[in-house]
């Protein structure tokens, strides 16, 4: 295998996904990142992670001891939620409100459903304890904490032998005193217990959302700390001694201690890698507005980068559980290569959301799948090569694909094979395009002002067709699309998002009331950055205020640009609030009273990053093959190129197919694709107007 020549410092990123563990290693002395892939080991992801490190070291000839930083994206928290693999937990809340966790916001999603949708009760009723106490909305103590009752509850919890406890009292964001006292009592009686306190996890107004977030955090603490411990043991064996940083749902990293303490922040760690990569590609290419589409086997994920930064949300739903924390805004629909097409009782041709998954998988996998899928349709239409799927490791069989499409779709609908296969793909495309359009429309944005970044195994086949649907004219196909999430992790920065609700009318004197809240958050941020060993000079603080018109039930986040609050800054923020409100909701009312709801602070550090290196083309000879491909309603003899054979100065005109090991790019007529200095491919459709 290759042996390393330079002695540069190595930065390593590992993305542990559902199927594969992907590694990227960047030698800061120069060159492109190395990419490596091994299967994920779901029973103990740390094992696959260690295998990946050892494998990459062998393949590229480096010593793991030379790695100075390991950035880790993980689905451990997400999977625990999806599989409901939780330890035994208790919840302590204000007496009279023990059922808030179960009642929730009680709105159903399925308007016409005859049967109730399943609601997951995270902690069962007998393990939810109410303690007599009451804090008012203004933070005042309405009823003191009943110490004797509290102690009784603590003893019952200890007797129940739970592993972890969540504490969430009403209005604790305004005054955490009672929550802290309860935590003290619990720690005194049961020092080994994991403890999650709502005023520390998510000090924001809205009791159900805060409670749900705190309980999830409590449930994940033993899961994530177990993973961290197992990982530490495995890493020692690989000779890798670098600090490990975990990527959080906000795209920023944190150290292992913080990850173990606030694991709810890891729930979207997995998908963040891809979005970080889209951000990085945008920086590299000077593109500020991008839509990332990640199309794999079962789902289609859309993310948005606007003005160079990933779009965020302050609350999200993770498989039916509400999490109120800042997270990357990712919209998912069940549309992937494995999505199954079917004819419903009304005679409609439908695609998804059910997926054939990996086993049996699409009919063409030859593992007994009988249902036609998106991948089957692409194979039947000649758009993917049967002998180059997953780099040739998995030959595809067109015969069962053809038969599935003919019998399940063609016959009942009276369509020929090609028409049925092509129709299946067009319907899937319409669903995906609608998802992108809505995702932008909700933010008041126009798709035509964005470029698409296509990744995931099936992204390349569909991106340009989708762009055509949306009148978008540029699509970027990243280098190493198959390990793109890991590539994105290489560029992550330390970032801790902190917040506290302090409902305050935005009038004279407000800055003086809010400044101490910001100062407290700064102190908290400093403590976290101390833990990350970030030097004071490298620390970056960005503050923001969630504001609204008095009486509204939703807020607009207004960045302050820095971390200071005086009358001048607040005045600027109020003006900015009216402007942002107008942009987002198309109206503003400068005379109406405004209130500040929540103070936010991002405490982070810009880690030094290597300069991007120019891409060295592989210089594979341009051996152009041809094969019949069904496109635009007819069979055409198309050029099939190897991605590595495309030269910087020689763009390729569509229609054509570009193949690489883990993905295929379909370039329709009217499009032209070119190799950029960064190694990414850019497809463009010249405007028809002059």
């Amino acid at each position, binding site marked *: 295998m290759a042996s390393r020549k330079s002695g540069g410092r190595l930065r390593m990123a590992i993305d542990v996904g559902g199927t594969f563990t992907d590694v990227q290693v960047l030698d800061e002395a120069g060159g492109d990142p190395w990419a490596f892939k091994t299967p994920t080991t779901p029973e103990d992801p740390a094992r696959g992670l260690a295998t990946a490190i050892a494998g990459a070291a062998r393949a590229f000839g480096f010593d793991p001891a030379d790695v100075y930083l390991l950035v880790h994206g993980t689905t451990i928290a997400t999977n625990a939620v999806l599989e409901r693999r939780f330890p035994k937990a208790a919840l302590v809340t204000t007496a*009279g409100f023990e059922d808030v966790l179960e009642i929730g916001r*009680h709105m159903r999603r399925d308007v016409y459903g005859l049967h109730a949708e399943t609601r997951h009760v995270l902690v069962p009723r007998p393990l939810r304890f109410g303690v007599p106490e009451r804090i008012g909305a203004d933070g005042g103590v309405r009823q003191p904490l009943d110490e004797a009752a509290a102690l009784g509850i603590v003893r019952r919890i200890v007797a129940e032998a739970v592993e972890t406890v969540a504490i969430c009292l009403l209005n604790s964001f305004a005054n955490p005193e009672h929550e802290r006292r309860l935590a003290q009592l619990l720690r005194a009686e049961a020092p080994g217990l994991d403890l999650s306190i709502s005023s520390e996890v998510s000090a924001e107004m809205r009791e159900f959302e805060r409670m749900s977030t705190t309980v999830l955090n409590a449930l994940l603490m033993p899961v994530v700390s177990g993973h961290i411990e197992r990982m530490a043991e495995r890493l020692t064996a690989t000779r890798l001694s670098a600090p490990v940083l975990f990527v959080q749902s906000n795209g920023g990293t944190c150290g292992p201690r913080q990850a173990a303490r606030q694991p709810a922040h890891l729930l979207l760690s997995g998908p963040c890698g891809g979005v970080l990569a889209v951000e990085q590609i945008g920086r590299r290419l000077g593109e500020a507005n991008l839509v990332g589409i990640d199309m794999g086997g079962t789902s289609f994920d859309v993310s948005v980068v606007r003005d160079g930064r990933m779009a965020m949300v302050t609350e999200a739903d993770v498989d039916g559980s509400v999490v109120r924390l800042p997270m990357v805004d990712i919209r998912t629909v069940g549309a992937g290569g494995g999505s199954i097409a079917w004819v419903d009782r*009304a005679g409609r041709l439908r695609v998804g959301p059910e997926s054939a998954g990996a086993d049996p998988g699409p009919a063409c996998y030859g593992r007994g799948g009988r249902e036609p899928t998106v991948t089957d349709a692409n194979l039947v239409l000649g758009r993917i090569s049967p002998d180059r799927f997953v780099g040739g490791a998995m030959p595809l069989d067109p015969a069962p694909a053809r038969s599935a499409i003919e019998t399940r779709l063609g016959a009942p609908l009276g369509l020929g094979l090609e028409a049925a296969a092509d129709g299946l793909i067009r319907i899937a495309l319409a669903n995906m395009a609608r998802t992108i359009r809505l995702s932008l*429309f909700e933010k008041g944005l126009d798709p035509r002002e964005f470029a698409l970044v296509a990744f995931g195994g099936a992204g390349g086949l569909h991106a340009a067709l989708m762009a055509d649907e949306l009148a978008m004219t540029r699509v970027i196909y990243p280098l190493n699309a198959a390990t793109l999430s890991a590539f994105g992790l290489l560029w992550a920065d330390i970032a801790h998002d902190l917040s506290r609700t302090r409902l305050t009318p935005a009038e004279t004197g407000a800055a003086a009331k809010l400044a101490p809240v910001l100062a407290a958050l700064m102190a908290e941020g400093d403590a976290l950055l101390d833990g990350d060993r970030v030097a004071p000079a490298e620390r970056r603080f960005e503050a923001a205020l969630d504001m609204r018109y008095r009486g509204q039930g939703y807020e607009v986040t207004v960045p302050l640009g820095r971390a200071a609050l005086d009358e001048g800054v607040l005045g600027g923020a109020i003006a900015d609030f009216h402007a942002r409100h107008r942009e987002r909701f198309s109206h503003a009312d400068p005379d109406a009273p405004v209130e500040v709801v929540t103070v936010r602070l991002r405490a982070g550090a810009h880690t030094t990053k290597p300069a991007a290196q120019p891409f060295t083309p592989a210089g594979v000879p341009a051996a152009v093959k041809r094969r019949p491909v069904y496109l635009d309603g007819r069979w055409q003899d198309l050029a099939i190129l190897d991605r590595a054979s495309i030269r910087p100065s020689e763009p390729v005109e569509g229609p054509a197919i570009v193949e690489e090991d883990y993905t295929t790019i379909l370039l329709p007529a009217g499009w032209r694709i070119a190799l950029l200095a960064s190694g990414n491919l850019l497809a463009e459709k010249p405007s028809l107007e002059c």
Partner: protein
Amino acid sequence: MTVNPDPVQLEILRNAFTAAAEEMSVAVRRTARSTTVREMLDYSTAIFHGDGRNIAQSALSPMALTLAPCLMEVLDHHLPADDWRVGDVVITNDPYCGSQHLPDIVTFRPVFVDGRRLGFTGTMAHHVDLGGGSPGSYDMTAKEIYAEGVRIPPLRLYREGRLNEEVLALLLQNVRQPAVLRGDLMSQIAALDIGERGLRRIAGKYGVPALTASAERMLDQAEAAMRRAIEALPDGVHEFSDCLDDDGVGDTPVHLRLTLTIAGDGMRFDFSNSDPQVPAPINCTFNVLRSTIHYAVIAALGRDIPVNSGCFQPIDVVARPGTCVAAIAPAPVVNRIQMAHRIVNVVMGALAKALPDRIPAAYYGVSYVYMLEAVEGDGGRSIYFDSEVGGWGAEPARDGANAFSCGVHNIAAVPIEMLESRHPITFTTYALRPNSGGAGRTRGGLGLVREFMLDAPTGTFAATFDRFRVPPYGLAGGQPGMTGSLTLLRQGDARALRSKVSGLRLQAGDRIRIETAGGGGFGPPGERPAQARAADIAAGYLSDD
């Protein structure tokens, strides 16, 4: 000229129509001002065929199904389609012209391509106030619709793109929050424009003939799917009746009586024998009756039936004008949701006789709408308006859901912390209500308990509840759910209140306790597995005696 759309294009166009309705919906949510629209999401948007039939809709409440027949009502009886021009916007809120009640304003706009009327776009939104005897236009004591607010007959607010300022001024002069109403109305009109652009985009891309043919085909397909679903039911005649406890004025129950006839691929719902309309705002109009039946049938017969005007063709609805389910002017109707709940209970009860393995027992069937006006020492007032949910009826194979929106009701609870920061009240309990689910082989879902205290010196409370006397029914031998109750707690005394109260004077420290109904049980209680019962006791859903 007929074009026969292929199944692929049909599906792509269906997707495009739905996307256009969704974009309209996002446009309303993004630009509306009021809490009713933005937080309670009480609005809907739709796309219509050139002849007025509905082809796509976006809504979170089943009650939004009234939007489509409303357009038909306007076209058939008020403003004929031939008289609609480019740039017109027609509005109405009159329940006797197709709206549900006065707070709901509907708006429609025709869409023309190359001079030909291709379709309509429409929106419905619940506005904060349309005037009348009580804030929010919810006058619980109304004897006639005139007390409920301003009635807008179908009229052109815009004619060929020009706003009729005088009509708008007349409207705004008569409502409590004119700026909010104007903002929400303009947001509805902006959404009409978004929908129009969506329809034009589709026409531009696929051509008018394909668009029209696809719309026809979608309607036909939906009708055929519904006919097949009905055909699969055994033919028969089923009777079912249920009632509201009382109308809040008198003390006698108000009965709804249904004769359901299933014959071949059609169904007939005959409500002719229901009680006369009452001088209290719990009546509903025929449009609400019909749309509520449509909702219940869609829910009962399955998910593969596309929801558009086509699927309702095989359903015939009959009622006698002047009855509580087909009120005639000037009957008050603002709380028509009371009647809609009971219509669902009755329709499901009748359908259960044809589909005994599928239909659940009765759900709580009340929206628990209540209002508290608090008056501070300095005279400052705040109005707290809310609603609650109860338990679902037990399903044949599964317990009913606890405390969850059901039937024609779909609302999100406003956080207690948010309410306490806005109003001088303190909540003392928000909890499930043990033992409230009807016993059965499968158990009805639990209702809930909500209790709050007035912190201001004085206040006035009003509520319109039901199911205090006649509980949600059980099926197949299951027990009914527990009835609801309303209690005033004052200085250690508990005083049971009627289900419908208005003008109740409160003082500081008074507490209002609301207990909502549980769902009915399914199957004989004796057949409940011992372990399911033990689990209920362990969870505290059932007390151990």
